[in-house]
């Protein structure tokens, strides 16, 4: 029962902050709300006993990605959203589309009969040891390839960041 309450609490915080990401006028606030969302998601991961993912999630998303966002916002000095706002019609359409999508997603996902075979709180697959074994044994090639992806992303980012024209 405890975990259900925790789930509901985390979800509520997550959705609240996710909505606030959109509602905040100031991009910095958006970024910070986003970070909060990510922390609650990390909580969700722990709830699912996916410890490794939880920590990696914090390191990658909160520790790296959102810091990058913060950096960008600060460096570009985008404090005011002012002129950035869509017409109310667009917002209305967006809301309708989002709502539709929400319903359809639930509907289509529910129509799948997902067989539950284990208790997420006791499952051991999320531990570093197990995930690591699988990652380095069965998924070694994609793992190595992802490092190449990173390298190229790094090179690309550096190239983009260079001031002078190429």
């Amino acid at each position, binding site marked *: 029962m405890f*975990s*259900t309450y925790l789930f509901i609490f985390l*979800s509520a915080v*997550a*959705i609240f902050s996710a*909505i606030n*990401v*959109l509602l905040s006028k100031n991009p910095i606030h*958006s*970024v910070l709300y*986003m970070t909060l*969302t990510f922390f609650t998601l990390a909580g*969700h*991961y722990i*709830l*699912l006993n*996916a410890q490794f*993912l939880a920590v990696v*999630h914090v390191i*990658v*998303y909160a520790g790296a*990605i959102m810091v*990058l*966002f913060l*950096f*960008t916002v600060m*460096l*570009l000095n*985008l404090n005011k*959203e002012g002129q*950035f706002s*869509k017409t109310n019609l*667009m*917002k209305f359409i*967006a*809301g309708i*589309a*989002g709502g539709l*999508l*929400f319903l359809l*997603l639930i509907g289509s*996902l*529910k129509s799948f009969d*997902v067989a*539950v*075979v*284990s*208790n*997420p709180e006791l*499952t051991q*697959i*999320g531990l570093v040891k197990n*995930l690591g074994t699988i*990652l380095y044994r069965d998924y070694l090639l994609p793992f190595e390839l992802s490092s190449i*992806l*990173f390298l190229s992303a790094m090179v*690309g*980012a550096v190239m*983009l*960041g260079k001031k002078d024209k190429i």
Partner: protein
Amino acid sequence: METTMSQFQTVPLQYYIIFCSALFSIGVVGVLSKRNALVIFMSVELMLNSANLLLTAFSAYRNDPAGQIFVFFIMVVAAAEVAIGLGLLVVVFRSTKTIDIQVLNKLKW
């Protein structure tokens, strides 16, 4: 399905489906209703994350590690994507002094 669930007395899988769908839809609304490219970018991240969570949930409930491995790779891709995407945003900002996507219709040419 109901019978298997009752054995565990834990968070039902449907909760995760609903929660993740909600998060995803919020991301979509953000993408549609915002003009700030940065916020749109964040909304995309939100959508990625909701997919991640759902993958993890399925993986945990079905005792299949592939889902979590997949999440790991999605994170890798997301990190790379953010590095490049933000780099692009900065470049765009440098040349146009704005990151409003309404203004950035130069893609047309």
